[in-house]
């Protein structure tokens, strides 16, 4: 993949569908459940991850000839922590009401397996632009998954989307509570597996942990 011809379409499709970090790779599940009680939180978390992944992949790619392979993991950790801190500080300043609810999870982006694994698997071997596109595509997949979950949970739990109510009652309050997050995640994963098996001949299901 180090040739100049890079198929961006494949990278993007891969990030969003084929290797969707949440539903496919089942990596970094904590925020998927934690912040998706509303569409808005899910979206902003997704944007944060998108930003971090793009910047981390870009930085790693730029520095790939400079970083000594023996200490590459610690180096990547520094890079990730830096961009997470930047995101954290920026969100704390500009999106205060959201930050109050999910500040901890923004900081914990640093521990996402998906960020480190893309740095290691893709960015350390590719040029700047493809690496950033890969990071963005993965982030996009992440963002879409969070928004999807957010829609599911907010619509059912509060009868609203992005804070705008479309029914007066709260249909199933449980969906915005901790237990509801797990239900939503499990049901949605199972449902996507089912669709995959039914319409795309996939072998969905039996996904491993991690």
């Amino acid at each position, binding site marked *: 993949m180090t040739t100049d011809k890079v198929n961006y379409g494949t990278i993007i499709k891969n990030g969003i569908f084929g290797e969707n970090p949440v539903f496919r790779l089942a990596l970094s599940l904590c925020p998927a459940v934690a912040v998706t009680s509303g569409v808005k939180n899910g979206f902003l978390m997704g944007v944060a991850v998108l930003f971090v992944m793009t910047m981390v992949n870009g930085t790693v790619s730029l520095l790939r000839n400079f970083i000594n392979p023996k200490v590459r993991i610690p180096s990547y950790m520094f890079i990730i922590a830096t961009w997470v801190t930047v995101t954290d500080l920026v969100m704390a300043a500009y999106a205060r009401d959201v930050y109050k609810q999910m500040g901890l999870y923004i900081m914990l982006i640093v521990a996402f397996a998906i960020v480190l694994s893309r740095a290691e698997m893709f960015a350390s071997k590719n040029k700047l632009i493809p690496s950033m596109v890969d990071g963005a595509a993965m982030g996009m997949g992440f963002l879409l998954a969070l928004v999807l979950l957010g829609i599911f949970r907010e619509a059912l739990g509060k009868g609203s989307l992005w804070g705008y109510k479309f029914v007066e009652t709260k249909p*199933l*309050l*449980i969906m915005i*509570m901790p*237990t509801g997050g797990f*239900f939503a995640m499990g*049901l949605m994963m*199972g449902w996507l597996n089912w669709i995959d098996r039914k319409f795309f001949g996939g072998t969905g299901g039996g996904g491993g942990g991690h």
Partner: protein
Amino acid sequence: MEATPKEQPKVQPKAPPEFFVSIGPHMRTEESTAKIMWTVNAALLPATLMSVYFFGLPAILVIIVSILAAVMAEAGMQKLLKKDVTVSDGSAFLTGLLIAMNVPANIPLYIPAVASVVAIAITKHLFGGLGYNVFNPALIGRAFILVSFAKPMTTYTQPVANIMAMDAKTMATPLSLLKEDGIAKLLEVYPNIYQDLLMGNRAGSLGETATIALLLGAVFLMIKRYITWHIPITFIATVGLLTWVFGGKSGLMTGDPLFHMMSGGLILGAFFMATDYVTGPSIRIAQVLFGVSCGALTVLIRLKGGYPEGVMFAILLMNCFAPLLDRGMRSRVFGKAAAKGVKK
């Protein structure tokens, strides 16, 4: 073989009748899963009748809707998963009935229906159907709607003993009165509290009110040996003991165990839900531990927790621990202890 066979065996010399061939034992008991389930349903009949007597038409509607939703959910899930439809075994019926027993009479009817569907579809069939569920379906159904529809689920009505009564006045349950307003208020609302608890003339979920009717069913099940003492008796006794020790306002040993044992859903839960075969432990010592823990958790929630009633959460919590209990208590095999002393 040294000798060569000359005469081939005549396997069927004169066309004998065809025989069934199977591995033994060739005798079975008369018991069956369906028989057990329907018997438990029958044991709930007295309590069901009492609830209809006290709460009238709304109770009947709740019972019908809950059972119908449960049975339809079971049939639907089994069709969807391409399994044999086994609604006739009475287990979905039982889940539906237990959900009805666990909601207030004047609840909007879609709420118990939601509980039935969650109980059957998610708690039971996603986990593989009858025998594989980890949690008691009826209790998960109830917890689900309690959290989702907190207000209607905690609005109880006065028993009216009038079949056509549609709009009974709201009334607090004895436990919530005690927890929030104290003993004086409790006695003001329920002057004959013990009698009311025994006969069921009190606010509460449909099936939990008439202690005597529940005990009738429970005794029947115990005589039939469908349930044993290990879980329910230890459960109730623990609640009694702990409420007596810690439940009083004026120091240790001043609580009222009788009140606590008869109020809330304790009798219903201890005899009909904690004893669920599938979600409880199956080893006897583990069952005793299960019962005692259920009791302790119930008292903890009633006295210290946010909810006035703790039976449901106590059983659900112990459902989590049932596999662990069974696992920990399994070493009692015949001759295993003796085998350690023998030199091989």
